[in-house]
């Protein structure tokens, strides 16, 4: 048999030095099956080879952590009462760019398997989506397909989609970002681990049969999109939510039976990934007979079986002697559970097909944290960074009084601000009967935790996903600090206590030093913010190569990469239902206050970017200590029952926060600016660390006392009431007009 050459290795995505290293590990030339195994496991997607050095610097411990980043398939946080929460976010960007429906659907499937493989039952999902210019037909095609894919999969799977993010910018025209988050609950005594040990223990493949779909998916996700990427379509997997639902129930049942040593879902790089990671973790090996793997089609080669990313499969290591019990549980759910091998002493993976050994590899050498390569990448500050800093607000035209209502309307109907109902009404947001936001919107999702042992729910998870990629692009370190802080602020505004984050680091090509500079800056910002807020990073996902390059132009440059988008998924806890807070005005005559400072700042605002079309500016003003103090005083206000509503200021600034607080119960307002700033900066500026609150007249004094004692900036804006949105004595819109604009805008784009 001819052994593969360096040229073949390079076609599989390996570097010459990696090929040499493989020969050194094996002490011989690899065969094609073995080479394919290394190519998949050492791809960026599985090995994190260009990011791990920096990821290791992230803070990852707190007293609540039961599994730290990288130890298991998802982060695991102790939430008290004998329960833990497993949560994680993961990207499916590349497949969604080519085949939006299946790409997004399998992203939902994959992230949920990461949760239930730990023994946790998923209770809530979120997603964060980024697309290009909405006026392009391709953008609408992608959005329509992604939303339908997420909906069809998640709805049938039966876990509510409770919150999300949707953002449009032309930098995502070719490369949309599709990040899916899931959170699940497990009793601390019933947590499963992705580990293999105990020589002689049986290894089962369970769930769907293995086909040729998704082969080289991990390698596909580890390169730029090009004009020929459509040829990679077979690298996109196909999802079946019904199988996933059965797999969920059967997996939880088999874990609860106690007959399982370890279990891991099959995602990127399929069987080779689960066998190597579980073996390496348990310091054992496996002997696997590939002839036993249930296949969808005949004549699959060994490397195809090892690398297939067919969905809805798990690898289960059972206890010897309890095989029949395991098989019976999967039989009940009409799923395959086929023993394909056994755990062996020593750390080798031995694969057999047709009676012959087709691969013999040290498990440790394949995996992240073991033999997988680790690279230090150089980085370099891009020229735009200093240019953006030169932004001068004086060069922005000032609107006159007659133009302000026009800007107000523009912003309410803007795709980045208007209601997301066209999207979320296609998702089942209520299955599980735990979503507290259905009838009381809040800045973060509030999801009641029904005790698995029975009884009424008394606690909630509070969750938010956030990132403004424009701010991160303008200044990666500050922009990422702001993303962490915004997600924490959202959790606090909903009454929760931020506990930990998961992150999805979406960047361009890491071999581009300017892209890598953005990555390094983002990590540094995340470290600072997470340390300040006491919210460790429990894990997540790195997605590089979110950029397009044309044929013949190697690598591309920083300008055809997406904005660096380190999406933050914040997990918080609400221990007392009385502390829950919603975002909308509750009653006529309540007082409206702004907490935080009003500044003469337009930098990084949607108004500046979209209305004034000025795209070169730094992020809005931000100070980490101020943010921390804001969140502390908000917690006191909410826990002392002094607020009727709390809504974070973000895109569209104070005006949009007012409108969003007013529309749910159709309660208008009369407000006045309290500082002589530029009116556009006062109403539409986005300087950070600010919250709009409403206060019952009886609590006005107590509220003001609390603010004085905390010595934190606040000011009275006006009062709730009427059918008009009155600003400085001028009616900008009626509530009905605002609702019409805000609620219909996205649907009109999509349905015409």
């Amino acid at each position, binding site marked *: 048999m001819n052994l593969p050459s360096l040229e073949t290795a390079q076609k599989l995505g390996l570097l010459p030095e990696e090929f040499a290293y493989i020969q050194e590990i094996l002490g011989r030339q690899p065969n094609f099956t073995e080479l394919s195994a290394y190519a998949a496991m050492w791809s960026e997607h599985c090995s994190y080879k260009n990011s791990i050095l920096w990821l290791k610097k992230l803070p990852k411990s707190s007293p609540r952590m039961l599994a730290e980043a990288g130890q298991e398939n998802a982060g695991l946080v102790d939430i008290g009462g004998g329960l833990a929460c497993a949560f994680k976010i993961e990207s499916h960007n590349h497949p969604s760019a080519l085949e939006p429906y299946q790409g997004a659907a399998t992203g939902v499937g994959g992230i949920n398997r990461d949760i239930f493989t730990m023994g946790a039952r998923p209770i809530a999902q979120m997603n964060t989506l980024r697309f290009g210019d909405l006026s392009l037909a391709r953008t609408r095609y992608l959005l329509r397909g992604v939303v339908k894919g997420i909906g069809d999969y998640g709805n*049938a799977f039966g876990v509510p989609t409770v919150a999300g993010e949707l953002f449009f910018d032309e930098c995502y025209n070719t490369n949309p970002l599709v990040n899916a988050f899931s959170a699940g609950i497990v009793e601390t005594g019933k947590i499963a681990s992705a580990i293999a040990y105990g020589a002689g223990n049986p290894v089962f493949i369970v769930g769907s049969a293995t086909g040729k779909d998704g082969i080289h998916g991990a390698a596909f996700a580890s390169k730029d999109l090009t004009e020929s990427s459509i040829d990679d379509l077979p690298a996109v997997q196909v999802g079946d939510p019904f199988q996933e639902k059965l797999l969920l129930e059967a997996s939880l049942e088999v874990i609860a039976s106690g007959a399982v040593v370890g279990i891991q879902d099959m995602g990127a790089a399929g069987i080779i990934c689960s066998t190597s990671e579980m073996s390496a973790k348990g310091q054992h090996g496996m002997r696997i007979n590939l002839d036993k793997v249930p296949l969808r089609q005949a004549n699959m080669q060994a490397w195809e079986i090892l690398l297939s990313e067919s969905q809805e499969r798990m690898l289960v290591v059972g206890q010897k002697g309890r095989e029949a019990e395991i098989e019976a549980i999967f039989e009940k759910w009409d799923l395959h559970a086929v023993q394909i091998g056994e755990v062996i002493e020593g750390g080798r993976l031995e694969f057999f097909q047709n009676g012959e050994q087709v691969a013999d590899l040290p498990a440790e050498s394949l995996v992240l944290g073991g033999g997988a390569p680790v690279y230090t990448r150089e980085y370099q500050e891009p020229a735009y960074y200093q240019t953006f800093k030169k932004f001068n607000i004086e060069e922005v035209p000032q609107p006159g009084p007659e133009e302000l209502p026009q800007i107000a309307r523009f912003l309410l109907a803007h795709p980045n601000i208007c209601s997301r*109902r066209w999207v979320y009404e*296609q998702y089942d947001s*209520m299955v599980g009967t735990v979503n507290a936001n259905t*009838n009381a919107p809040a800045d973060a999702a509030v999801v009641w935790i029904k005790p698995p042992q029975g009884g009424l729910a008394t606690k909630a998870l509070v969750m938010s996903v956030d990132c403004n990629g424009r701010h991160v692009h303008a200044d990666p370190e500050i922009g990422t600090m702001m993303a962490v802080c915004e997600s924490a602020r959202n959790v606090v505004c909903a009454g929760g206590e931020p506990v930990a984050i998961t992150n999805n680091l979406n960047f361009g090509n890491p071999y581009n030093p300017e892209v890598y500079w953005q990555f390094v800056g983002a990590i540094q910002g995340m470290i600072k913010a997470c340390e300040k807020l006491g919210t460790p990073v429990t894990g997540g996902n790195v997605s590089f190569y979110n950029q397009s390059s044309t044929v013949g132009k190697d690598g591309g440059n920083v300008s055809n990469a997406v904005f660096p988008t380190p999406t933050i998924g914040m997990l918080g806890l609400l221990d007392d239902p009385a502390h829950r807070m919603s975002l909308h005005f509750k009653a006529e005559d309540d007082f409206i206050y702004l907490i935080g400072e009003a500044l003469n700042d337009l930098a990084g605002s949607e108004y500046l970017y979209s209305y004034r079309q000025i795209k070169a500016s730094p992020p809005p003003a931000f100070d980490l200590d101020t943010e921390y103090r804001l969140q502390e005083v908000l917690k006191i206000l909410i826990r002392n029952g002094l607020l009727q509503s709390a809504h974070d200021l973000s895109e569209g600034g104070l005006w949009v926060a007012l409108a969003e607080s007013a529309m749910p119960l159709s309660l208008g307002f009369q407000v006045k600016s309290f500082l002589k700033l530029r009116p556009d900066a006062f109403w539409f500026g986005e300087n950070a660390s600010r919250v709009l609150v409403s206060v019952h007249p009886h609590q006005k004094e107590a509220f003001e006392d609390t603010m004085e004692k905390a010595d934190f900036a606040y000011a009275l804006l006006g009062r709730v009431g009427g059918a008009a949105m009155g600003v400085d004595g001028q009616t900008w819109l009626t509530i009905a007009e605002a609702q019409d604009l805000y609620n219909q805008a996205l649907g009109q784009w999509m349905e015409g």
Partner: protein
Amino acid sequence: MKFAVLVFPGSNCDDDLVYVLREIMGQSVVKIWHKDHDLQGAEVVMVPGGFAYGDYLRAGAIARFSPIMREVAAHAQRGGYVWGICNGFQILTEAGLLEGALLRNLSRQYICKNIYLRTLSTQTLLTRQLDSSKAYCIPMAHGEGRYYAPMNILKKLQDQDQILFQYCEADGSVSEAANLNGSLLNIAGICNPARNVFGMMPHPERAADEMLGNTDGRLFFESLLGTLLEKV
């Protein structure tokens, strides 16, 4: 009162019903696997929402062949109560226990949101304590909920007072705008001629817990329980 909640592969509102019935309404509940043959003496059989068999082929088309459905039909034949919600309604129509069919929403999109229901007939256990002049806020969540039946069946449903619920506006008026899935006659729920089998697309169990900020749906459970208890 003893309730049986059926579980098909792909059911996903079964635990929501168990939670409402057991934890909120304080009733005795058993979950019954679709391959079982015994309703364990339950007085009311609940057919929950979800995607039984993935809704493959057609919603409810495969589930109706599950072994437990023979027992459900016999229970209904004996005058026992059966209540199907969402996918449960689809299964009951496929099983021939209720008339008509649920087709793909006119918008061809799955729709999940709060909508309003009006009670047309209060002449069933499920609706006896409901107020026919009131609009109840109840969530809907389905892709295939457009009620369809031939004209003669529709006429029979009307003549025999079998239409239990219609989609309506917040003020109770019946309009085309409130008919989001395009159902004939705005039909959201019906009963069989013997008035012991109920089917509805919207989910009252999703509006039965104070913690969720809407308890309109609890009234449906209270009506059923109240009238059942009255009978005892």
